[in-house]
C-alpha cells in the first residue's frame, strides 16, 4: 500500500513539474506547481512528518503560490513569450542537467544501497517539533523572524510609488 501510494504520488509530482516546464502560460505553470506541492506534502505525510506536510500546504501551496498568481495577474502577458530563438541553449541545458544528475547520484551512492532500511520512528508531532524549535533551535528561530521582517519591509520599499511619481 505504501509502495503504491509512493509511486502514484511520485509520478503525479514529476509529471506536474514537467508540465509546468512545458507550459507556455505562466498561470498554468503556477497551478501545476501547486499540484506538485500537494503531492510533496502527501509524501511528507508518508515519511512520518504530518506537521511539515500541513505547513507545506498552508505556506507553499497557499500563501506563496497566491503571491505568484497575483504577480502574474499584474503583469500583462497577452502576447505571450515566443518560441525559443537560440536552440543551443536547450542543448546546453540538457548537458548541464545530465552532468548534475550523475554528480548527485555519485554523491548519494552510499544512501542508494537497498540495504538501507528506513528506521521505525515516531511521527514528528507538533509537540515534539515545538519543543525542539524553542530549545535547541531557539536562536535560529529568532533570527528567522528578523529575516521575515527585513524581507517584508524590503518588498514594500521596492514596489512603493516614489513621491510625485503618480500615474
Amino acid at each position: 500500500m505504501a509502495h503504491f501510494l509512493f509511486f502514484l504520488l511520485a509520478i503525479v509530482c514529476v509529471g506536474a513539474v514537467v508540465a509546468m516546464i512545458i507550459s507556455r502560460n505562466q498561470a498554468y505553470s503556477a497551478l501545476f506547481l501547486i499540484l506538485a506541492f500537494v503531492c510533496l506534502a502527501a509524501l511528507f505525510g508518508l515519511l512520518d512528518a504530518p506537521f511539515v506536510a500541513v505547513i507545506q500546504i498552508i505556506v507553499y501551496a497557499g500563501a506563496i503560490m497566491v503571491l505568484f498568481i497575483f504577480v502574474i495577474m499584474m503583469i500583462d502577458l497577452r502576447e505571450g513569450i515566443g518560441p525559443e530563438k537560440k536552440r543551443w541553449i536547450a542543448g546546453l541545458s540538457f548537458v548541464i542537467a545530465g552532468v548534475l544528475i550523475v554528480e548527485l547520484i555519485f554523491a548519494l551512492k552510499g544512501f542508494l544501497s537497498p540495504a538501507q532500511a528506513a528506521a521505525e520512528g515516531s511521527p514528528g508531532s507538533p509537540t515534539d517539533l515545538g519543543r525542539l524549535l524553542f530549545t535547541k533551535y531557539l536562536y535560529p528561530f529568532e533570527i528567522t523572524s528578523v529575516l521575515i521582517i527585513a524581507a517584508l519591509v524590503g518588498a514594500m520599499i521596492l514596489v512603493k510609488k516614489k513621491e510625485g511619481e503618480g500615474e
Partner: protein
Amino acid sequence: MVPTSYFIILSVVLFVLGAFGFFVKRDLITQFLCIEVMLSAGNLAFIAFAKAASALDGQIYVIFIITVAAAEAAVGLAIILLVYKQKKSIKSEDMNLLKG
C-alpha cells in the same frame, strides 16, 4: 515500508528538473517557480534523511527552509514587478544592461 533511497531518487529527479527548467525557460516567473521546485526537492531529501536517522532535526530545518522560501518569494516577486515596470517585459534575455 518504502525505502529511503526511493525518496532520495525522487528528490534528485525533482532537483534536476528544476535546474533544467531554470536554464531552458526564458521568463522570470517560470524560472522563479523552478527555484521553488529545487527548494522543495531539498526539503524532501531533508525529511527522508530525518526519517532514516529517526531524528526530528531534519523537520526543523525544513520549517526554516520554507520560511526562507517565503521571504525570498516576497522580495523576488517585488523585483520582478520593478523590472516589468522599467522594461515592460519579463524575458530574462531582455535584462542586458550589464552586457557592455
